[in-house]
C-alpha cells in the first residue's frame, strides 16, 4: 500500500498541482466540524457551487466518521488542485492506520457495514464525489483519495 507523506505527493501524481493544503487530525466527533469548516473555507477559492460544496462536505464527513468508527483515529487532508487542462477541484484524502478492509468490493456495496451502521459511507462518498479511489490493507490501514471538480473534468 502506498503511504505518502503529503497530499501534494499523491494528488499531484493523480490530478495536478495541489495548493492550500489543510491537515485535520481525526480523533473525536468534534473534528468533524473542523472538516466541514475547512471545506467551507476552501470552496470559494474553487468556484464550487453550493450543491457541490454540500455534496463534498457530506462525503468528507462520511469518510471522517469511518475513520473514527473503524480506526479510532486518522487524518484528513484537504486541498485545492489545478489540473494541466485548467480544471479546478477540491481534493480530499482520508487515511488511517486502522484494521483495514478485507473485502473492498463488499465494502463498496450499499448496506454493508461491519459496525452496525447504515453501510452507506463508502459507496455514498463515491456517488457524492467526481473522482474516488480507495486502497486498504488488512492490519495496515485504509486510504481514500477523492475529488470534486468545479469545472467538468475527464
Amino acid at each position, binding site marked *: 500500500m502506498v503511504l505518502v507523506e503529503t497530499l501534494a505527493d499523491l494528488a499531484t501524481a493523480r490530478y495536478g498541482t495541489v495548493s492550500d493544503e489543510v491537515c485535520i487530525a481525526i480523533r473525536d*466527533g*468534534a473534528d*468533524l*466540524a473542523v472538516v*466541514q*469548516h475547512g471545506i*467551507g473555507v476552501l470552496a470559494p477559492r474553487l468556484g464550487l457551487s*453550493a*450543491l457541490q*460544496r*454540500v*455534496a463534498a*462536505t*457530506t462525503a468528507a*464527513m*462520511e469518510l471522517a*466518521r469511518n475513520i473514527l468508527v473503524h480506526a479510532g483515529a486518522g487524518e484528513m487532508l484537504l486541498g485545492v488542485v489545478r489540473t494541466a487542462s485548467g480544471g479546478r477541484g477540491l481534493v480530499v484524502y482520508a487515511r488511517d492506520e486502522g484494521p483495514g478492509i478485507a473485502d473492498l468490493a463488499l465494502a463498496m456495496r*450499499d448496506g454493508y457495514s461491519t459496525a452496525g*451502521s*447504515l453501510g*452507506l*459511507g463508502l*459507496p*455514498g*462518498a463515491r*456517488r*457524492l464525489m467526481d473522482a474516488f479511489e480507495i486502497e486498504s490493507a488488512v492490519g495496515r490501514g485504509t486510504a481514500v483519495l477523492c475529488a470534486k471538480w468545479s469545472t467538468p473534468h475527464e
Partner: protein
Amino acid sequence: MPTQTPILKQGDYLIVSLQDAVSDTDLAALWRTLVERVGAQRIRGVVIDVSALDVIDSFACRTLTQVAQALGLRGAEAIIVGIQPDVAFSMVQLGLSVRDVRTMLDPEEAIEYLDRVTRRGPHAGRA
C-alpha cells in the same frame, strides 16, 4: 465550545432549531432533554428545524430518526422541517432516508399538521 440548541415551547408543542455543526454530544444531550420534557410538559408534538444545517450525514440522519422514534414512544409526534435543497439532494445521493419520520417544509406547516392530528383548533396565541 458547547452550543445550546434553542427549544421553544408553543402550547403543547416544542420547536427545536438545530444550530449548524451541532456536535455528537450536543445531539445526545438534546435527545435526553426532549424525551424528558415530553413527559414533564405533556408535549404532543416536536418540530425539529434543521434549516441551519449545511450538511446531514448518515450519523445525523440516524440520530434524528432515533430521536423521532423515542419521542413517538412517549406519545409525541416528531416532525423534521427545513431540510435544505442541497442537503436533500446529498442525502438522496448518499442513500439516506427518513422514511419512518414525517418531514415538512417549515415549522408553520408542521404546526398546522399537528393541530389537525391532535384535533385542536387554530393554535392558542396564533393570529
